[in-house]
């Protein structure tokens, strides 16, 4: 093995820390995807583009002279209404239909979003400077941007807040009831239409938070939405719907995988590795399930 990462243990620590902090961010996006998938039975290909849009909101604030970290409060609010509007315009027509219809429809939305963002914000790679500095660990051999620590902290904060909200509040209960059985919930007086809209809005708001955090930790570009969609999809199928601790763990696992793939395969193969991992996970899952089917025989 002639890879740099195996020779320098400090690089290993660096990659692990980076990966875990990044993974927490991915888990936040995946949580939104699990929510809408579980409640509305929709796979949203535009998930990643909602993230990027949220990031551009924070970036716009940065350009206007406001510290981009405030984006984690402003961006979800705006994105909630974007999500709500999106639901009312398109998603409500595909909720009860075939899943492929929802995939294609959100694919169309993703293309529109990408192009509009390209017009408004330009095709350059941008980053909002948080100027949080970096933390040096282990004799300056591991550098950790404070913005990454900040983003992981905020992600956990929001995730915990959302879990409590889903458990305690009236809307949260209605959402969970609809996820269990939409028809029964409707009979018992839950306005499912409103629940769906709120779910999609909350999902978009989560994307907004994640986007704002990405704008200060990573980079933004109008066309990098799809990898985020695929990452969150991957996390959800590994973790299962409605299993939040598993989502967090598999998010971190994905983050670790990516950082290590980055060092071992090279940065140019990073996105390719993510998509390949998706294929491998799905194929693995297919063989596991088919084994189960044979047992039943």
């Amino acid at each position, binding site marked *: 093995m002639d890879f740099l990462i195996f020779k320098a243990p400090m690089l290993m620590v660096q990659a692990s820390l980076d990966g875990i902090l990044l993974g927490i961010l991915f888990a936040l996006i995946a949580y939104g995807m699990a929510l809408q998938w579980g409640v509305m039975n929709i796979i949203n290909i535009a998930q990643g583009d909602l993230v990027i849009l949220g990031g551009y909101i924070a970036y716009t604030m940065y350009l206007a002279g406001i510290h981009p970290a405030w984006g984690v409060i402003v961006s979800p609010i705006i994105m909630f209404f974007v999500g709500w509007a999106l639901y009312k315009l398109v998603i409500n027509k595909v909720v009860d239909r075939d899943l492929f219809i929802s995939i294609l*429809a959100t694919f*169309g939305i993703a*293309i*529109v979003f990408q192009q509009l963002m390209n017009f408004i914000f330009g095709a350059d790679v941008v980053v909002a400077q948080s100027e949080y500095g970096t933390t040096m660990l282990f004799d300056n051999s591991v550098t950790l941007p404070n913005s990454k620590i900040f983003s992981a902290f905020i992600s956990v904060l929001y995730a915990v807040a959302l879990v409590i909200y889903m458990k305690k509040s009236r809307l949260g209960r209605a959402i969970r009831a609809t996820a269990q059985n939409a028809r029964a919930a409707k009979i018992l007086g839950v306005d499912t239409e409103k629940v769906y809209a709120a779910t999609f809005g909350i999902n978009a708001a989560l994307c907004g938070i994640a986007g704002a955090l990405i704008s200060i930790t990573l980079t933004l570009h109008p066309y990098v939405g*799809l990898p985020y969609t695929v990452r969150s999809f991957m996390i959800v199928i590994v973790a299962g719907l409605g299993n939040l601790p598993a989502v967090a763990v598999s998010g971190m696992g994905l983050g670790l995988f990516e950082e290590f793939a980055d060092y071992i395969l090279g940065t140019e193969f990073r996105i*390719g590795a993510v998509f390949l991992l*998706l294929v491998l996970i*799905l194929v693995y899952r297919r063989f596991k399930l088919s084994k189960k089917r044979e047992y039943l025989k």
Partner: protein
Amino acid sequence: MNKVKQKDLILYSGLIILGLAAPYLFSAFKVQLTYLCVLIVLAMTWNLQGGEMGYNTFGNILFYGLGMYLTASVQVGMFFPLAEWTESGGEKTFVHTTAQYFQGIGVGLLVSAIVPAIVAGAIGYAILGLRGHYFAICTLGLGIAAGEIAGGIEIIGAGQGFTTPPFPAEIVDTEARGKFFYFLSFALLIGTFVFVKYIYGSRFRLILNAIRDNEDKAEAMGIQTMKYKIVGWMCSAFFCGLAGGIMGGLIGYIDSTDVAFDGREMGVFMVLMAILGGKGTLWGPVIGATLFHFFKEGLWTLILGWQYVALGVLIVVIVVYFPEGLMGWLREKYPERFGEVIDDKDRKAQVELK
């Protein structure tokens, strides 16, 4: 029966004559016509998966891109060192003679048909076991992964792209290049159409439909579904690879994510065209592709810069409001013309029910 056949004969011979005459009639639009042929081929082969088998794939772009790279690589690699060609400006140092060019493209197309089919067969067992949306997302990932990986491989040009061999300069006729690629793609179109039409009349199609309607039941009836799924996918891959090879030669330049594994354009187009025309019908994809191409060429220039927004909106509108496509709509309106007999009694009963 005989009468219908005669009608068909007139229709087909008319279309073939039109196809053969098209490059002379619309001599300025040869490239567009070539595109149209390739688009129809892609839509028809997608329809075999998405429409007939019920496996909505985004991954046929994989075979298209593979075919494109293979044709160009073989065409260059047969006569010159491939690595030096792609390194920088190889097309200036090495020049194909006329014979070499046509030999190369012939062998290249052959390879680009066979290898994708083999690839489809090899990955088919793993991938086609996935159902529904898992399959859709998996194939989406496959197409994009292929693009990203091809963009990192040095010998086929990596990120800076791959210039396919230019048309031999010894041929003086300026029209020759356009005509050559047009007739190549037209031949491919006829081949694909004949093949798909043959499938439509065969037991194979019934099996594919059975898989679409209820795979578990089909399996329970004793059909080896996996075998047929893989064969179906291999057929698609065969024609997609050929289409890719022709397009590579026509465009003259291969980029990993923008031309070859172009999931954002071609990959979506083929799905959209098949759905627009009506999936699960023989003529649907043909009509859908033709309409889409006219729409695209007519409107793209008018709304320059906004074309992708229009494309996205078009996808949403078609998918949400016309999931059955044009043929589905016609079928609902004029069921008699599709050979569906509706009793007057039935119709009356339905009216009464309403």
